[in-house]
């Protein structure tokens, strides 16, 4: 909680104190003097700093993130409308990273220094060195433009299925509309791979390291010495240990995904909050960018809190 308050203060500092003339930023360069004066009064820039900060807190408590200069709608509303798209993409990428990353990490550790291990390590090191937006473009070029296997952009062909969640693939499935479901999945494919790749690389690294370390532990040695079947030792006991450390990393992963979403959504024209932020930047839509920053920060903090909770549950030692 204090972190959130601090974050708000930081955003306030960035948006109100750093700019030489915040009014000009908000009103735009071509605004007239009276317009600027009106804005000054409206936003309270003539009041002392601590009053401004206080007002800012109050404003945020009301859920008011200001109005978008471009759409003239409340920023909060805009963000909320676009949220499901980003959630769908982020979840898909997270699933990819975890469901593919963990087994590969485990196998890589078990077959240490084999050709397989070297290949996996090569891929995971590369995953952290590739600029994700570039990867997205290259995948688009290859799979959408050259091979024509996947669609180029957007979320779905035709009309989106009616649905509660806003996650088009889920909605399509729930509505029994298999054509829409397929379309949604194909559209998800490239963005998910692009977004998930660095996260996948991270998961593989951490899982591999975790398994290697656990393999040396006395507990595993004991089970080996007592002839417990190797696959049971690996997939039941070692994996559990590796999972606890992966869970801790999920907070980090989420940060990667959230940050990556901005550029990825831009590349694939994915109508989520990242795309919104990008357009806001292009249009110098000041409030929108600040609103997004705050929003992203709060979400990130929230996820990390959640991860801490889950970790406490999974690892009974912490509960002591």
């Amino acid at each position, binding site marked *: 909680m204090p972190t959130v308050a601090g974050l708000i203060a930081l955003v306030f500092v960035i948006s109100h104190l750093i700019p030489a003339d915040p009014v000009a930023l908000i009103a735009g360069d071509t605004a007239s003097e009276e317009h600027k004066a009106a804005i000054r009064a409206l936003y309270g820039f003539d009041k002392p700093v601590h009053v401004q900060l206080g007002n800012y807190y109050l404003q945020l408590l009301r859920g008011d993130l200001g109005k978008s200069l471009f759409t003239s709608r409340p920023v909060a509303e805009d963000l909320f409308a676009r949220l499901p798209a980003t959630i769908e993409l982020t979840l898909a990428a997270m699933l990819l990273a975890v469901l593919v990353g963990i087994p590969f990490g485990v196998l890589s550790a078990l077959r240490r220094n084999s050709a397989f291990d070297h290949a996996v390590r090569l891929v995971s090191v590369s995953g952290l060195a590739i600029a994700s937006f570039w990867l997205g473009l290259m995948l688009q070029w290859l799979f959408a433009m050259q091979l024509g296997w996947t669609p180029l952009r957007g979320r779905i062909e035709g009309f989106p299925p009616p649905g509660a969640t806003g996650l088009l693939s889920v909605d399509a499935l729930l509505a029994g509309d298999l054509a829409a479901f397929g379309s949604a999945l194909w559209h998800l494919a490239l963005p998910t791979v692009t977004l998930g790749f660095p996260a996948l690389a991270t998961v593989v690294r951490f899982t591999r390291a975790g398994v290697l370390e656990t393999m040396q532990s*006395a507990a595993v040695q004991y089970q080996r010495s007592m002839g417990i079947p190797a696959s049971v030792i690996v997939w039941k006991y070692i994996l559990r240990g590796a999972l606890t450390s992966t869970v801790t990393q999920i907070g980090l992963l989420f940060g990667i995904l959230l940050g990556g979403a901005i550029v990825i959504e831009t590349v694939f024209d994915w109508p989520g909050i990242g795309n919104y932020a990008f357009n806001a930047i292009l249009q110098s839509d000041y409030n929108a960018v600040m609103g997004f920053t705050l929003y992203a920060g709060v979400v990130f903090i929230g996820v990390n809190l959640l991860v801490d909770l889950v970790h406490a549950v999974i690892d009974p030692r912490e509960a002591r």
Partner: protein
Amino acid sequence: MSEAVRELPGGETLLAVQDLRVSFATEQGQARVLDGVNFDIGRGEVVGLVGESGCGKTTLARAILGVLPANAASIDAGSILFRGEPLLTLPVEYVADTIRGRRITFIPQDPFASFNPLFRVASQIDELMKWKSPRAEAGRRHGLWSLFARYPRARRAADRASVVDLLRKVQIPQPESAIAKLPHEFSGGQRQRLMIAMSLLPDPDLIIADEPTTALDVTIQAQILKLLRALVKERGISVLFTTHDMGTAHEICDRITVMYAGQEMETAPTAEFFARPAHPYTAKLLESLPRPGHEIQEIGGEIPALIDAPGGCRFHPRCDRASEVCARERPPARAVGHAHTVRCHHPLVALES
């Protein structure tokens, strides 16, 4: 106290290690950790393997169990016969399934670290019983299929009853509720008792106890040792007991073998061992034990690096009695008394002719 006697194929000798040579690959070269070790354990015997750190006793224990690290260690020569079967040449799957955790069980040195901290004790014992209970069939599931093997309900109840029964014998209070706890909720001594129980549950022929009391408080050590000895004698189980502490060896062992730098030096029944040591190293070890009224005697010199170990008898650089034959030839095992053999060119006790 009644002592059980087990019927064993292969006669009186349960375990025979013959001329075992094991080396480890290290950055500096090959370390010859075991240099032709000969060693045996008879029916119902508690045999102690005594030596300083690095003498190879843990490696020997692991070699018998078959859990040497495959990428670092290599067995260069020798054989291990268990109940007449050559362990080193049997199929690995067979050994892991039928012998390890069933005929030969293990008590680790560190009861703190040997339990998986994330799982309750009951579930860890159950896992063991699922595969290694005397009621379990041997040699059925292999590979990944073991993940899907189920623990038959009918057996569970009977197994659980055996477990609770044995836990009482090792003096764990209220066993049924105790095992629902996590490992860190037990004290060190209690954890070692659990380990002892787990080593007995599969009804093995041989227990390998690797320095089982080193990590425990001195006051608890004696208790644990007495308990272990009583339980194995009751069941006629043999024990290979490794330690660097002569005192504990004296407490629990019927026979003691001394090792130095990967070579066994002397073997004798316990009383004889302490009364009439034949090997200079043994004598020095005994002298270095703290005694009231005597100054502590050191053994001069250092344990050799095993990459470039001395030739012949590896103790010769530190031995007062060494001569040039000691550097050249490793002495063969010769009798100096009843069941008392020594490998020395200049033993302290006259050889039997």
